[in-house]
């Protein structure tokens, strides 16, 4: 690959720089001299080079605040290799290492240990995922499979959103933001500091205005989201820690959908206002017990409910999940973790207009799982080998064994090299196995349909669909050039089998004789490789100035299996539905202790196939684009912050992404927002 040569060039150039080891004279000072020394600079909170044998990136709460991000998907853009493109004010296409989409099914997302991946369509309802951003401790973004720990659907990545424990909260806060595109308000209140039963509660409301399309017509996709929640963490004795947290949410959103209707001559595909509402709540309880200095266990139970209904379908789901894990040292070189889990999920899905069927309306699915992982320190402080595997048994499919081998080597203190090979699977969504839905009507007497009857393209679920299968190979290097400059480079090769595709099925006259139905049955029909590189660099130019660079590039090389009959003219959407290059360059400057100035430049390469479904009718590419966001904050008093956030400043509007079906394309506008944050 031509770019890996470029990266070797970068590394070559860097090797000429002297490795800065702080060989400080103060190391020789005695304690009396030490007590006389003044702290001369603001402390740099750098830590030694990561010892994780995975392409893991931590987005800190400071990063989020300084980025000006006002939603979780925006914050995810801070991590290298994450494609987070906005479809509408509340809808996003978020993915890692390819396979973008509103429902990117190969990415597992967890909020405080609770999975928000929905098996109905496979993916995450991003419009329903929110927290008070001020409560986030960090977001861990792991690129590459995490199936040996997290199970199925942790195929291309795992995103773990972690809020602060209530015992860590510093106090109550009120936040308000008013802007040209989005308004939000939030309030968090906490128990007294030092309380034996630390508690925090929050409320948050967000409202986003509609986008417009390229011609300036309103997309009717505004939204309102109201959310409240709480968290409490407490110790019983010295070794038992309990946590309870929960959230409730109401979401109202709409969008303009193009609904196919073979009886609606002459247009057949009718633009309709698609209003959606969703109610959700969850409750999580966790017990962690320290058994010894090298041993602890945790037991987590959660209940999650959502009830989403729009013009087209309703989706109600209740999930109960129990997870136990135990970690302990074995000898002086081994650290073992094992655990088991049970998840039961009950859902009700139904279409609300005449657009297809969804098979059994109610269904209960169960997953039993068990995992074990052994981290072996082969040579002290230098080499670690991690072996792990998870076994999952699904009530709706065959059991899967998901193994993983990782090796980490620290040849010198400032460099770490790692490699990994892992297997992961994506289990078929219920939409893929049982739903039959109308996608589009081809008008009669046109070039594509010269006949006299309209043709309905109908996607047909396949009850025999097998899981998509991945063997992932990764190599990574982290290098700390100096205390102020670090690099993180990863190469990955993902080898897929059994990827989903649509076949050309039969063309039949509908029972009503009013139209023809062209069925497109779903099949496991594609295999091949996706490979690429990801680079992150973090340079603290001065104590008050930091530059962060993230670059990623991928290439998908997929092919249709022999015997799979795609509609003529179909391109393999999974090869082309992802921007192949992403660049993020961020400058965080603190000219004065109470003033922050942040500038964030991003480049997103073009997407050749933005309409993956029925792309033989047209692929509607999206051009590459450059975005510029800024965040300026001023604290006139220690407990008061005023901020000015600008997003997408370089152009008036541009498209970033589009939903897979029934969609109209909106454009992301330039926007400004003023914010006020008050600690009390």
């Amino acid at each position: 690959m031509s770019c890996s040569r470029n990266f070797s060039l970068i590394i070559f150039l860097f090797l000429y720089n002297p490795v800065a080891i702080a060989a400080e004279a103060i190391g020789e000072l005695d304690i009396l001299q030490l007590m006389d020394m003044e702290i001369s600079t603001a402390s740099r909170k750098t830590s030694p080079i990561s010892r994780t044998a995975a392409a893991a990136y931590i987005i800190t709460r400071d990063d989020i605040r300084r980025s000006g991000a006002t939603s979780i998907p925006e914050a995810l853009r801070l991590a290298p290799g994450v494609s987070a493109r906005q479809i509408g004010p509340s809808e996003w296409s978020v993915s890692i290492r390819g396979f973008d989409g509103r429902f990117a099914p190969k990415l597992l997302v967890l909020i405080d240990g609770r999975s928000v991946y929905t098996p109905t369509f496979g993916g995450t309802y991003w419009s329903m995922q929110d927290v008070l951003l001020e409560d986030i401790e960090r977001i861990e973004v792991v690129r590459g499979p995490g199936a040996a720990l997290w199970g199925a659907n942790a195929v291309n990545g795992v995103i773990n959103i972690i809020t602060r424990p209530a015992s860590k909260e510093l106090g109550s806060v009120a936040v308000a933001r008013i802007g040209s595109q989005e308004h939000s308000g939030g309030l968090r209140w906490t128990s007294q500091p030092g309380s034996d039963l630390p508690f925090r509660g929050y409320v948050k409301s967000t409202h986003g205005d509609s986008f417009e399309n390229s011609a300036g017509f309103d997309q009717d996709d505004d939204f309102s989201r109201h959310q409240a929640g709480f968290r409490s963490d407490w110790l019983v004795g010295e070794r038992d820690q309990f946590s309870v947290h929960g959230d409730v949410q109401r979401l109202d959103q709409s969008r303009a959908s193009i609904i196919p209707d073979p009886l609606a001559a002459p247009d057949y595909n009718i633009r309709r206002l698609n209003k959606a509402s969703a109610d959700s709540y969850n409750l999580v309880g966790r017990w962690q017990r320290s058994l010894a200095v090298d041993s602890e266990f945790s037991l987590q139970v959660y209940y999650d409910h959502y009830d989403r209904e729009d013009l087209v379908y309703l989706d109600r789901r209740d999930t109960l999940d129990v997870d136990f894990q135990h970690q302990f040292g074995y000898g002086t070189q081994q650290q073992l973790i094992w655990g088991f889990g049970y998840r039961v999920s009950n859902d009700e899905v139904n279409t609300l207009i005449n657009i297809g069927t969804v098979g059994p309306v109610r269904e209960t699915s169960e997953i039993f799982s068990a995992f074990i992982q052994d981290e072996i320190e082969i040579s002290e402080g230098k080499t670690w080998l991690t072996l792990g595997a998870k076994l999952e048994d699904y009530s709706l499919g065959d059991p899967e064994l998901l193994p993983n081998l990782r090796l980490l080597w620290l040849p010198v203190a400032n460099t770490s090299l790692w490699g990994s090979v892992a297997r992961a699977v994506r289990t078929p969504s219920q939409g893929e196995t049982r739903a039959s839905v109308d996608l589009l009507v081809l008008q009669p007497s046109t070039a594509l349909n010269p006949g006299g009857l309209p043709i309905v393209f109908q996607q047909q679920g396949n009850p025999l669909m097998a899981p998509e299968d991945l063997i992932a190979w990764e190599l990574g290097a982290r290098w700390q050039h100096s205390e102020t400059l670090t690099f993180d480079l990863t190469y990955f090769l993902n080898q897929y089998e059994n990827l989903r595709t649509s076949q050309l099925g039969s063309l039949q006259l509908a029972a009503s004789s009013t139209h023809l139905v062209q069925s497109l049955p779903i099949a496991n029909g594609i295999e091949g490789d996706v490979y690429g590189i990801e680079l992150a660099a973090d340079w603290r130019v001065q104590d008050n100035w930091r530059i962060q660079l993230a670059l990623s590039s991928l290439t998908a090389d997929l092919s249709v299996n022999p015997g799979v009959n795609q509609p003529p003219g179909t391109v393999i959407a999974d090869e082309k539905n992802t921007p192949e290059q992403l660049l993020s360059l961020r400058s965080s400057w603190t000219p004065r202790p109470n003033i922050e100035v942040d500038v964030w430049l991003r480049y997103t390469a073009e997407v050749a196939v933005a309409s993956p479904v029925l792309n033989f009718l047209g692929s509607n590419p999206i051009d590459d684009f450059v975005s510029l966001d800024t965040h300026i904050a001023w604290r006139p008093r220690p407990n008061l912050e005023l901020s000015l956030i600008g997003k997408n400043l370089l152009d008036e509007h541009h498209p970033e992404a589009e939903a897979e079906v029934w969609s109209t394309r909106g454009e992301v506008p330039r926007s400004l927002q003023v914010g006020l944050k008050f600690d009390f």
Partner: protein
Amino acid sequence: MFKQFTLWCLVAAALGSVVFPNASAETGSPQLKAVYTLNFAKFTHWPDDYVQGDSLGVCYTDQASVAQGLANTSVTQIGDKSLRLRRINLPGNVSGCHVFFVHDQDPQRLRRYLATLRGLPILLVGDSQDFVDSGGMVELFELNRKIRFRINLGAIRQSGLRLDAQLLNLAVEVIR
């Protein structure tokens, strides 16, 4: 497209080839705290059967503020013992640790870890708020732009360690 990407690669390379100033003239609080931590070892006496061989183990958790300072220290010798640095993820194996700088972002989890370390002949140093009240032994804190410390003598005695009187005299506070 690759052309564009090549361009970024070169931009990145250009950024990197600037020679960066060393931060060695500065003594930020992590570096100072790291030196304090190493110095405490000079004033500490371990049970005879615990110090084995010629090396003295100074351990630290990944999240510790001093981690960077310790990892890059030029010190190789403490008294007549050679220094052995080790990073530890808790829960984890702490054998070979004589001094342990313990930090965790979650104050309650830190308390749990400190409870599991109680009674072991390891000098527990930290800079979290209420570190000595949570079961730690030496707590570093900042006062008027200087580093000061308080000592939990009860926890130290319980673990079988002894501290030199000179160090106790320098502490802002000694909890017995």
